[in-house]
């Protein structure tokens, strides 16, 4: 591997969270973004072809070394690492609405869910999955929420574009059909 690739590998190993290309660039002022990307591909290929128990994964707009899926059971059983707590249906509903409507205010979430979502949003905010991104224009300038990189991380997504498009769902919500017959 190239010296830069080895340096990046060490940094990825040391980090407990995904590192973005920009963050990795700070390791070596001379390394450009293209060189860092090349180094990342080099590391990913080295893990992939060299029979390793870990792999380099593109996640949450960054890169992270993760254990291979086939070892999840064994690691879990031995309790060397804890699986993240599962999210409740209410939390997932709220996350889905915020992910698709962001920036979105609490009232709109309440309206879609048909239930007060203040406490759920508070919990999601505490877990770092959503955050206040701006304030709305309307009455009282409501706080508007959006998803965080942590949200992408717990779902294993590169970015928000990886979420399914609404028209790909089996229950596509289309605007009400015009009343006039064709």
């Amino acid at each position, binding site marked *: 591997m190239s010296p830069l690739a080895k340096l990046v590998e060490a940094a990825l190993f040391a980090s*407990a969270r995904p590192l973005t290309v920009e963050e990795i660039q700070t390791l070596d002022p001379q390394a450009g973004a293209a060189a860092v990307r090349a180094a990342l591909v080099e590391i990913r290929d080295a893990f992939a072809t060299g029979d390793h128990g870990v792999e380099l994964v593109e996640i949450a707009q960054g890169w992270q070394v*993760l254990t291979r899926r086939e070892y999840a059971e064994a*690691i879990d059983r031995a309790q060397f690492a804890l699986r*993240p707590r599962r999210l409740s249906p*209410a939390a997932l509903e709220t996350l889905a609405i915020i992910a698709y409507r962001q920036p979105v205010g609490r009232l709109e979430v309440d309206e879609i869910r048909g239930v007060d979502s203040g406490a759920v949003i508070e919990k999601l905010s505490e877990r770092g999955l959503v955050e206040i991104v701006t304030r709305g224009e309307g009455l009282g300038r409501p706080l508007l929420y959006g998803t965080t990189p942590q949200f992408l991380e717990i779902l294993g997504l590169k970015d928000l574009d990886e979420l399914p498009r609404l028209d790909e769902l089996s229950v596509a919500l289309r605007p009400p059909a015009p009343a006039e017959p064709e």
Partner: protein
Amino acid sequence: MTALPPTAQDQAGFVVELEQFSGPLDLLLHLIREDEVDITDLPIAKIADQFLAVINELGLNQAADYLEMAARLLRIKAQMLLPRRVGDDEWEDPRAALVRRVLEYQQIRELVEWLAAAAARRAEQFGRGFAPEPPAPPPAPLVIDLNDLLAAAERVIALIPEPVLHRVVPRPLDVEGATERIQALLAERAAFGWGDIVGARATLVDVLSAFIALLELAKRGSLHVHQEGPFAPIQIRRESAREAR
């Protein structure tokens, strides 16, 4: 609707069953799916009755969100029963808004399944753990010799500095005397300088007394104080327009 009086058992059941549904729309969607009816042509009377039955059965009658939905369903049911003229173009299906909400909610439920699957898949991989720093061990119990303790106490006492005593001497400012002096000067001359008040060999107390007296008289309007610039000699003029009280 007949609300059963809440009992302890109801309360307990309420908490458990509420977790089964994430909200009234969830319950509504559950009923629709169970009946396998067409959402767009919702048999509102049947669904409304079932909704009320479940609320009573589960003791959900305290949850405002569920009650609100129940009221909405009953209202739509009543609207559906109202007679309408044939060929009335103005008539809008009272179920339309509800159907839109249920469809929208159904879409969210589908996204929830997608998100849950994505999260479960992500949970099959572990990143490098970040071990937080272990808490500092509790301090060992203090084992100490009495002689050492006394020696330490002596060292600490030796470090305490001798208290410094100050004698406070009263040196009141003689503002009255200075005022009298200035008033005497005012009676004598229309204008004079700062030096005329305090003299050549003024002490700090004299200067302060004279200055306060001067400011006080200027405030009363007995005289006019003027200074060309910073550190320039202070000029005092008799104020003729306003006389002192």
